[in-house]
């Protein structure tokens, strides 16, 4: 296949085919970002429909009509699947990974540009397969994003025969796409750092995305094998998970959650990396305990392989194993808490400017704290007996997933928008969008903590059949949550308007509008193909902000030590 697209001469005519067939890591990053945002619209519409059904059971939902219980299950399944695999992963891992890793490491592209393009194409195919599954007979798969057999393995039970198989195929394709992408990220980050850049000169977001890619590669294998077995169960009638033939449904749960828990750290770490970058830049301060954060990220990654069965405390596993997993689950809360404390400590002694990216970053820390602490209730096996699969669990993981997928993504988009598109976003619109989204988010999920503690169980499409739950008080809470969701969704067009208008008519951005240190700010914005006129050499760490006797409060990594500003500083001294 001729490498026409990558030949610099041809690249300049921005024909649509060249764009579609480009292997430039920045173009591929944008393709992932836009696909992720598009899928977020579908995920958002799904949650609007079924939350309206929960608030006003049985009534016709505007733009959708009456929701049957089968449709409800499909909408819930699609919301969960899309938001994790087709919004959080592509935007956080693939879009920011593809855009930032070559730029922040000071090289011109990923080591395997064509494999990078192939990974997006496989991802696009997986998105098409998933969306196609909405329209097959029987509708989209209705067995929850965890797809527990025998419900998922047996069309007689889930009544969405084709939707179920297409769902597994789409998720498997998405895994292949991120395996291809992961190999690219890890190899590029390991081998092609800029000259002079030592291990701890690599910015934290690159560390986090690489650790996340390693976690993903190490955890997805068993589930891919499980997915092959599940498709055979569905299509060929083998009995891997069918007890009648000797199989075991618990085997799938273990295969799934052995992947599932590292997966939530795969999406958490990039968001933590983005937030750390933004906090360091906008408080003009060195990241507190940079090495500690990297070590705790690695420790969190390793421990995340020992905690998976806390999703299955009451699922029929051996109760003694549950005691073991309670201990490991509470142990993993220690490094994560350490990381968040380091973020908060970074603010101490800073000079904080509350631009929109910083607002989002601080909101991430504030909201994620509640997500983290409510995890303790569920990690403790005793309390999980009552709380498992209630809305308390749902509220907990939305207080972790929403900061990760939505707040983390908005932090990254608003921070790197000038670098991506060469123009500045509008601050006023940014702040309006920020405050309404954050307040609405809390209005949704605080009530759901309460309804969850009161006994609301997940994926039940109408509570009127349960006398203890059909009380007006609880129904008011469910309506409040839905109103919160509607107001959250209604403010998103402000962001899309700001995003599209600024891309075309926003004020022109300089190369380094936020006065940051990392290498991508030394490239012009938007960076041309090949990123840097001449590839930068690195002289110091990425967080040399406000060094004592330097007049500027920032010190880009690529400036030689004897740079024009008068006083040589006490910061890292290194011969070029």
């Amino acid at each position, binding site marked *: 296949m001729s*490498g026409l697209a*990558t*030949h*610099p001469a041809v690249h300049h005519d921005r024909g649509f085919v060249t764009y579609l067939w480009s292997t430039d890591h920045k173009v591929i990053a944008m393709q992932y970002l836009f696909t992720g945002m598009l899928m977020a619209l579908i995920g958002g519409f799904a949650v609007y429909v079924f939350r309206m059904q929960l608030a006003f059971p049985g009534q016709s939902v505007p733009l959708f009509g009456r929701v049957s219980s089968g449709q409800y299950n499909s909408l819930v399944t699609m919301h969960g699947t899309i938001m994790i695999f087709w919004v959080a992963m592509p935007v956080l891992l693939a879009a920011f990974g593809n855009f930032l890793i*070559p730029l922040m490491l000071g*090289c*011109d*592209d*990923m*080591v*395997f*540009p*064509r494999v990078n393009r192939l990974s997006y194409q496989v991802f696009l195919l997986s998105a098409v397969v998933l969306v196609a599954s909405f329209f097959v007979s029987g509708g989209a798969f209705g067995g929850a994003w965890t797809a527990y057999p025998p419900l998922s393995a047996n069309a007689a039970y889930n009544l969405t025969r084709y939707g179920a198989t297409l769902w597994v195929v789409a998720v498997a394709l998405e895994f292949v796409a991120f*395996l291809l992408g*992961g*190999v*690219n990220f*890890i*190899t*590029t980050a*390991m*081998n*092609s*750092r800029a000259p002079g850049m030592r291990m701890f000169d690599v910015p934290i977001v690159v560390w986090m995305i690489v650790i996340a890619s390693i976690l993903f*590669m*190490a*955890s*997805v*294998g*068993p*589930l*891919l*094998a*499980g997915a*092959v*077995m599940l498709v*055979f169960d569905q299509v*060929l*009638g*083998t*009995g*891997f998970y069918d007890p009648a*033939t*000797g*199989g*075991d449904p618990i*085997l799938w749960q273990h*295969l799934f959650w*052995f992947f599932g828990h590292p997966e939530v750290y795969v999406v958490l770490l990039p968001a933590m990396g983005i937030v750390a970058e933004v906090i360091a830049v906008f408080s003009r301060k060195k990241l507190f305990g940079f090495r500690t954060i990297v070590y705790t990220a690695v420790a969190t990654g390793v421990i995340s392989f020992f905690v998976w069965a806390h999703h299955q405390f009451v699922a029929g596993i051996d109760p003694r194993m549950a005691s073991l997993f309670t201990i490991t689950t509470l142990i993993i809360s220690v490094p994560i808490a350490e990381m968040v404390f380091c973020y908060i400590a970074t603010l101490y002694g800073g000079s904080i400017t509350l631009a929109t990216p910083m607002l989002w970053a601080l909101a991430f820390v504030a909201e994620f704290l509640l997500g983290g602490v409510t995890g303790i209730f569920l990690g403790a096996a005793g309390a999980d007996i009552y709380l498992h699969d209630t809305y308390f669990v749902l509220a907990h993981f939305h207080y972790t997933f929403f900061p990760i997928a939505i707040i983390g993504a908005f932090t990254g988009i608003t921070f790197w928008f000038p670098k991506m598109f060469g123009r500045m976003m509008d601050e006023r619109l940014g702040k309006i969008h920020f405050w309404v989204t954050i307040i609405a988010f809390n209005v949704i999920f605080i009530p759901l903590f309460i309804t969850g503690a009161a006994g609301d169980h997940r994926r039940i499409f109408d509570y009127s059949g349960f006398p203890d739950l059909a009380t007006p008080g609880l129904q008011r809470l469910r309506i409040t949550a839905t109103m919160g969701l509607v107001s959250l969704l209604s403010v998103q067009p402000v962001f899309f308007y700001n995003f599209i208008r600024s891309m075309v008519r926003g004020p022109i951005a300089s190369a380094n509008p936020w006065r940051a240190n990392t290498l991508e700010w030394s490239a012009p914005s938007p960076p041309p193909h090949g990123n840097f006129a001449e*590839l930068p050499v690195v002289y110091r760490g990425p967080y040399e902000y406000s060094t004592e006797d330097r007049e500027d409060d920032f010190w880009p990594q690529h400036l030689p030590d004897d740079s024009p500003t008068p006083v040589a500083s006490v910061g890292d001294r290194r011969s070029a």
Partner: protein
Amino acid sequence: MTSRPIATTRNVMGVPTGRLAVWWVLASETVLFGGLLGSYVMMRLRHGAWADQAANTNTWTGAFNTLVLLTSSLSAVLAHQAAERADGPKAALLLRCTILGGGVFLMVKAFEWTHEIREGFTITSGLFWSFYYTAAGLHAAHVVAGMVIMFIVSLTAARNEELHRVENVGIYWHFVDVVWIFLFPLLYIAK
């Protein structure tokens, strides 16, 4: 040839980028086959009764296939050695021998499977046979993938170009051989 980015020319960790990528692919494949074979072993521990199902597998064809894969691994490492000595055409020839080995392996497996299926042991005639066909099938898919990649590499190697790829595809092939080394006792010897 495509203008390769400068990123690939850098070698900070001391392992060439191509080979480093293959090691990471092998890492994800180890976990993939580990999960599948782990599940199979766990099920075997529960079902002692599978032993008499497994009795119907033909150990001799399994042993012969192991011999074929070991030989193809030998020709793969000899191809890598030829590539080390910058002898492209010899490396390409040895790679094609390896592909031939893979072909023989698949042919033997095809005959074996048709025989077993004709005898009524299909993928749905019991969980042992489901695991037997899934594990061996996934492995065979990796053999086919290896043969295709090896053919592409042999084309460039014949022109003495990109000889480092010979080693990389060789490492992948040895991994496929190691997976079969464990599959053989699991499916054929544990009776």
